């Protein structure tokens, strides 16, 4: 707009331009937006790294990202073509961009900010000469270093580079020389990627955007076939995969799946993605919604594990033609595939198994953990569960013990009759008590939890219950309460 410049005060700006819209700075939203664009830019290369705030310590926040395009540029016909394509797509989103390609992140940053051309590709090795004419601000230094350099009369980077290093090391913080070295490529600068870079990656650009879930799945199938070959070559299998769907309007949808055992099975992986997409669509209650369609699809193996090639076991079920499913292989593999499939539709924490826990309090004596496939040797080991004959425990254990009205002959005797969920049960026989003390090491110092006396009772028709009386009569409490805790088979 007319004469507005960065750094103007608000009053000046308002005087210069009428009807100026003012919004307070929302750095969190800025960061989120930058992250979104960086995620979108993973369509060019897996490593996209948004700038962090410590590059440029002013109030405007980070406003760009690095792309590590090494090994990716040739896919777009060279670095020039890549940044031209990137600039065009960004301008379609309404983002005027300044782009530079250089051999080091530091040089690329400097050139993108201070070079006169909006798109610039610096041939490798020319960093020193290209940076020489740029102001010292181009080195991504803290404001106090910048101002003291300016006071000492260093206007350009070139002026710094000519001088001996020792006095700078003595006078300034280590950041100055570090930034210089990083810009010139003498010191490595690791990039922090926006998403973890995948181990194996396969990307597909589409001529026409695709909208339907079937089309996405068909494309995923092709990508997975490509990946399966690469995985097989390396004797590796995928444990976690990510499907990136790049929408025409710049948004990226990512779908992650995890696998119980490493796999290279194309049909299984594709089926899991299909289930997950269906589950996501069901969760949003809109059906599969691709809005304007997807223009690119990427499939990445985010976690790979060694998976030696094995001879396929021919089981008797395969021979008799009994099992017809997408998954073949040995029993453990098929079990893992089943767990994955169930988890794909039902969600995490839905496929579990029992695990004994070290506690004698019944409700704490076991936990449910995510189901897993044991290795062959682990399965042959002794069960972690105690021997059967020690104590009898109810088959169904109520998640919360339910209070009940009990009639007993003597206050600390076995129950004779109790009422639970609106039904009165007359007790024919009882067994107990089994006394279970509270875990004093869990209660805060000075407090005590009541002891429980458990009774196994049976009524006249044959219902079997597990009741307990909370508190030792006369010692811990004068009015003991009763609870129903479990139901026996």
């Amino acid at each position, binding site marked *: 707009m007319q004469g507005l410049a960065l750094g103007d005060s608000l009053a000046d700006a308002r005087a210069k331009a009428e009807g100026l819209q003012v919004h307070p700075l929302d750095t969190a939203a800025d960061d989120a937006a930058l992250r979104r664009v960086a995620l979108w830019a993973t369509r060019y290369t897996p490593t996209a790294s948004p700038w962090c705030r410590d590059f440029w310590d002013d109030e405007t926040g980070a406003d760009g990202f690095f792309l590590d395009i090494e090994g990716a540029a040739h896919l777009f016909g060279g670095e020039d073509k890549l940044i031209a394509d990137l600039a065009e797509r960004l301008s379609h989103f309404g983002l005027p961009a300044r782009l530079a390609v250089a051999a080091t992140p530091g040089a690329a940053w400097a050139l993108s900010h201070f070079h006169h051309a909006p798109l610039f590709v610096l041939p490798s090795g020319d960093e020193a000469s290209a940076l020489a004419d740029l102001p010292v601000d181009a080195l991504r230094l803290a404001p106090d270093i910048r101002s003291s350099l300016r006071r000492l009369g260093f206007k350009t980077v070139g002026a710094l580079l000519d001088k001996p290093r020792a006095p700078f090391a003595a006078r300034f913080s280590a950041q100055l020389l570090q930034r210089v070295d990083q810009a010139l490529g003498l010191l490595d600068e690791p990039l922090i990627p926006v998403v973890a870079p995948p181990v194996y990656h396969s990307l597909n650009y589409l001529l026409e955007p695709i909208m339907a879930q079937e089309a996405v799945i068909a494309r995923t199938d092709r990508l997975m076939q490509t990946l399966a070959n690469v995985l097989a070559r390396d004797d590796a299998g995928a444990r976690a995969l990510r499907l990136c769907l790049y929408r025409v309007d710049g948004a990226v949808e990512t779908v992650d799946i995890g696998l119980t055992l490493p796999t290279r099975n194309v049909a299984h992986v594709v089926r899991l993605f299909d289930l997950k997409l269906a589950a996501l669509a069901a969760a949003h209650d809109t059906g599969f919604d691709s809005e304007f369609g997807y223009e690119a699809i990427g499939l990445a193996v985010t976690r790979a594990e060694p998976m030696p090639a094995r001879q396929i076991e021919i*089981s*008797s*079920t395969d*021979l*008799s033609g*009994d*099992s*017809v*499913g997408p*998954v073949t292989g040995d029993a453990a593999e*098929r*079990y893992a*595939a*089943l767990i994955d*499939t*169930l988890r794909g*539709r*039902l969600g995490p924490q*839905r*496929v*579990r*198994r*029992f695990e*004994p826990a070290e506690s004698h309090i*019944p409700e704490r*004596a*076991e936990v449910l953990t995510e189901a897993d496939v044991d290795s062959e040797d682990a*399965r042959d080991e002794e*069960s*972690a*569960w*105690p021997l*059967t*004959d020690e*104590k009898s*425990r*109810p*088959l*169904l*254990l*109520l*998640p919360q013990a339910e209070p009940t009205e009990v*009639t007993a002959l003597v206050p600390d005797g076995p129950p*004779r*009759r109790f009422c639970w969920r609106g*039904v009165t049960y*007359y007790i*024919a*026989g009882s*067994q107990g008590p089994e006394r279970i003390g509270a875990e004093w090491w869990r209660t805060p110092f000075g407090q005590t939890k009541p002891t429980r006396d458990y009774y196994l009772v*049976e009524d*006249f*028709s*044959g*219902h*079997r219950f597990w009741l307990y009386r909370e508190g030792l009569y006369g010692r811990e409490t004068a009015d003991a309460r009763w609870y129903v805790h*479990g*139901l*026996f*088979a």
Partner: protein
Amino acid sequence: MADTTELLAEPSTGAQNPVETRMAVRSAVVAELRRLLPGVDDIRKPLPFGLPALDSHLPRGGLARGALHEIVPATETALPSAFGFVVALLTNMLAKLSRGPLIFILPGYTRLVSTPLSGHGLNSLGLDPARITLVETAHRKDSLWAAAEALHSGVPLAVTAAIDRLDLKTSQKLQLAANDSGRPLFLIRPAPTLEASAAATRWRVGVAQAARDRFGLLARPRWHLQLERCRNGRPGEWKVEYDHVTHRFSLAAALADHALSRRSSARSHKQAGRS
């Protein structure tokens, strides 16, 4: 006619009785195949209770393996007994035979079976909890899908699911899935009214007083079993008890302490009335 039989018969046998010879050859081939593929026939073998009184009611002397079996609690409060009966079936019939996971599909959406299974409880009944994979579902549709999926995968030795409602068509689908996989599917049906279904058997499990040892302690759980429907078999009614140590069913001694329990029951009612 004569020409064809002669053509089919082996020339070296002298064609004394061509049909008999062919049968002999065929049975030899089948026996040889059986020897080569030991697992195949095993999968189809029915699962006997080990109780002649029960097994004689079932087709081929046992529960069909690749089939759908419904287990219905006789009353609402008999649900633990129904679960216990299934666990006893699994332990008695399958767990000993071969290794493999057992899958339990339990709904999280209904209060009917909201009481969770306990690992220590399963252990007390003799079933190793480490072999069980527990699947929790949010809808009835998910339960049915998970059951079919588990059967199709051919992985589990048996699938147990608790389903409150089931129409005929779905039950036919499940029966087919069970038949294809050769695995039994036990459906626990805590429902007051039951629709027609394609299940091979329907058991009604009621509560019964447990067997006691000589100290009066509960030794073995007993259930009142009613075989309500059985395809190619006969319905029947028994009182069975299950020993969790030997993993064995036995018939409860019919009249042993029946009178005693009735007397004590009457007495306790009287007492309750007085108090």
